[in-house]
């Protein structure tokens, strides 16, 4: 993902909706994916994504450029996704049932059946692995394995020390290994 231009950020901060839409188009994929992987379903991911961008729009005029806008958005996305997950976890224990048709937008009419089955199997594995982790560990794993962020980028997005990133990843992987070996 390329860095957003200063001019674009300033325009959006002054209330230019077209500029803000451009920022949305460039960053919403990341925000939605992180929200989707942390909350576990597309309904909550959509809600979190909307909240992230509304919060960003309202705060953009006060953005101080101490970190990159993307890092700032990552941080808002991660925090809101974790909060959303925790809030919902209190009402409904466990994750929402895996629903590939609505969550991944499969087209059962055109996609080859074998391909769909394979994708579904892969996704089931991903969901069950992530489900074995605590939200903070899950976020670290999602940022690293799925979004491909470096340790430094993860530390910036989560506002934590780089060694904390290492220890969270290490513990998360120990848990994932134990979980996979039990099955």
């Amino acid at each position, binding site marked *: 993902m390329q860095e957003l231009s200063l001019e674009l950020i300033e325009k959006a901060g002054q*209330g230019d*909706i077209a500029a*803000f*839409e451009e920022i*949305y188009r460039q960053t*919403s*994929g990341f*925000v*939605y*994916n992180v929200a*989707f*992987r942390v909350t576990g379903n*597309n309904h909550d*991911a*959509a809600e979190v*994504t*909307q909240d992230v*961008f*509304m919060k960003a*729009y309202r705060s953009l005029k006060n953005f101080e450029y101490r970190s990159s806008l993307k890092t700032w958005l990552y941080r808002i996305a991660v925090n809101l996704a974790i909060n959303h997950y925790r809030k919902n976890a209190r009402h409904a224990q466990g994750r929402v049932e895996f629903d590939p048709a609505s*969550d*991944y*937008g499969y087209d059962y009419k055109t996609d080859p059946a074998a391909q769909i089955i394979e*994708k579904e199997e*892969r*996704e089931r*594995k*991903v969901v069950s*692995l*992530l489900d074995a982790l605590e939200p903070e560990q899950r976020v670290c*794993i999602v940022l*690293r*394995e*799925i979004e491909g962020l*470096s*340790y430094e980028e993860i530390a910036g997005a989560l506002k934590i020390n780089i060694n904390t990133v*290492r220890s969270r*990843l*290490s513990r998360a*992987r*120990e848990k*994932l*290994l134990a979980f*996979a*070996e039990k099955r």
Partner: protein
Amino acid sequence: MKCAKCKELIMTDYADGELDQKLQKEVTAHLETCAGCRGLKEALLKKAVEPLKSALKVKPPEFIWQNIRERIISEEEPDAQSALSVLRERLNRIFAVPKPVMATAAVILIVFVLVVGGLSIYRQPANDYSAAESEFFSTEFGEYNGNADFSDADLGTSVEVFLM
């Protein structure tokens, strides 16, 4: 390199390709000779790393942006309406006079009205007196104007006699 250190690195920097060249070589050398660490590396990559790397990337549905756009517009509409009330408030603030100043101004106005009103009340008889005086001089006494030989007997009182 000892197994404990190697395992620690396998779980993080080695699995993520974040090791510098020197450490990378050391870990690789250790893995060639240690079946335990090699087994851990293979299990980790196969069971915990690769399945997650193959996770699908999901596209945000278009309705999300439409909802955000609508929320932004609906939040800004009341702002535009309130811009007028903000302007009115600012004008009020600019032209606002503090209450003590208003009270003092009111007291000064009342005093001024009373003083001016009072003076005009006192002036009224004085004016009447002047009018009566000039009438007197123009009529009864006036007939003596320019007449030097009016007699003392025509002046009413002794005071008048004295004053004259």
